[in-house]
């Protein structure tokens, strides 16, 4: 037992200590007693568990989705960098590493070059079919224009902030990985893949477009690395399409809607999709996602689920 505070006096202060409501001097005195008193230590542990239950009484306040997603992205990026720094899971499959930074994300549909190979029934990128579109290009652009007005500049700033954070985190991860795994030949190819992904997401020529939803729920961002002709779509809250249906990504120019492949979200609604396609920077009007029959369509047959004007 401590010489400073008697057992009874300390015991009477344990409830306040569990609530962290003692003044500093009294707190120190009680803690000094508790350190030498098994009974008080047990009592304090039980009271702390009681106090912890008070948190349950806070009325649930859902976090706004944009803030929720932003914090999540920062956390997962930090954790990925932290993991690599600590070497806690160096053996993780680096080829999927970028996908793993977004939990539950499906593997990239196309890992250079794979869209035509893996979904051959989709119009290959570059094959600009001229079948009559179901939706006039002007209608798409009007939708895009109206949505981009809603998104506003704040959306772009958020995307830029996310990108900056992602860039910092991934740069740290890449640096650490390079030093730790330099001698591991089996991982070199994977590192190269991630480096390319980093460049595709954060390079100086990357244009970022936020895809707003026409049904409020899904949201996504398209990272267009114009230097490498790389397209990376990251989306959240994308509902699973109905049986026999799939999602299809379109690059919209003033004269064509070019298929960039089909994709499915995970059960948790996450999407990460990569494609490669050379498109002059001044010819892109918008990117869009539509719900299409399984295997994809030659031209979009439904109104876009998500769309972003350039």
């Amino acid at each position: 037992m401590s010489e400073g505070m008697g057992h009874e006096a300390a015991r009477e202060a344990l409830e306040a200590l569990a609530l962290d409501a003692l003044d500093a001097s009294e707190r120190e005195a009680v803690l000094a007693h508790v350190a030498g008193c098994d009974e008080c230590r047990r009592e304090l542990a039980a009271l702390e568990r009681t106090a912890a239950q008070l948190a349950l009484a806070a009325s649930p306040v859902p976090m706004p989705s944009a803030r929720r997603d932003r914090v999540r992205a920062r956390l997962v990026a930090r954790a990925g960098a932290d993991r690599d720094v600590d070497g806690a899971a160096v053996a993780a499959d680096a080829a999927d590493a970028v996908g793993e930074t977004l939990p539950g994300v499906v593997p990239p549909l196309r890992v250079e070059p794979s869209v035509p190979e893996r979904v051959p029934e989709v119009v290959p990128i570059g094959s600009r079919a001229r079948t009559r579109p179901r939706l006039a290009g002007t209608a798409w652009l009007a939708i895009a224009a109206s949505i981009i007005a809603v998104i506003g500049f704040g959306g772009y700033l958020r995307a830029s902030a996310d990108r900056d954070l992602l860039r910092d985190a991934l740069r740290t991860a890449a640096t650490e990985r390079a030093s730790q795994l330099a001698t591991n030949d089996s991982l070199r190819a994977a590192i190269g893949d991630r480096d390319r992904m980093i460049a595709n997401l954060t390079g100086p020529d990357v244009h970022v477009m936020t895809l707003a939803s026409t049904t409020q729920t899904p949201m996504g961002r398209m990272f267009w690395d114009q230097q490498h002709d790389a397209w990376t779509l990251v989306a959240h809250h994308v509902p699973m399409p109905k049986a026999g249906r799939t999602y299809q990504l379109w690059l919209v120019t003033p004269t064509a809607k070019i298929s960039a492949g089909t994709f499915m979200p995970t059960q948790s609604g996450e999407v990460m999709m990569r494609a490669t396609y050379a498109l002059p920077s001044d010819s892109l009007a918008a990117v869009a996602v539509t719900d299409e029959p399984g295997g994809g369509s030659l031209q979009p047959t439904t109104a876009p689920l998500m769309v972003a004007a350039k």
Partner: protein
Amino acid sequence: MNPPPSPQPYLDPEGAPPAASSREATRRPTTEDDALVQRMAAGDERALGALYDRWVDVVHAVVARVLRTADDVDDVVEETFWQAWRQAERFDPARGSVQTWLLTIARSRSLDRIRTLRRRREEPLEGDDGYVIEQVAPSDPGLDVEASERRRIVTTALAALPPEQREALELGYYGGLSQSEIAERTGQPLGTVKTRMRLAMQKLRSQLGVLGIEGGG
């Protein structure tokens, strides 16, 4: 003067005595949350994302009760899960649930932040518009059945307290006020505040213990 942050009771510090609640170790089965924390400890950031998805709204509720600005709230929500990530290896399921662990971190980090803000801005204590724990629990579609039930029990137990005792509890827990500060704010003698807080905790503990919620007896 504000007291420093309290220690985290759900971690397993080296040399600590066996968990006082060893009965929980046998009572609580391994949960999905426990599995996620184990994966986090192994360096799997996907597990952190999954844990975040499960509990962010509950954590946000606690943080938003203490802090007022969105930037502060977001920072503390992030720091809560970040601390969970960093301390996942030390999490001991026998000492409590993951939910309780997370909420304890959230509350502690929130109080750290509000105390820092007060020092920096020399803010007066918060006004009377906060810290009223609601007495009727709404439905919580985002929570699983067990979590919703626990919440209902806690809010019911709080509602059963005399108002002046509940006020002392709330000002201490959500307001981060010391007993002296509560006495100053409410105009009550310090001894009265101490008695109210102690009685409130004893009743709450008894209620939760009877109802089988951890923390009782």
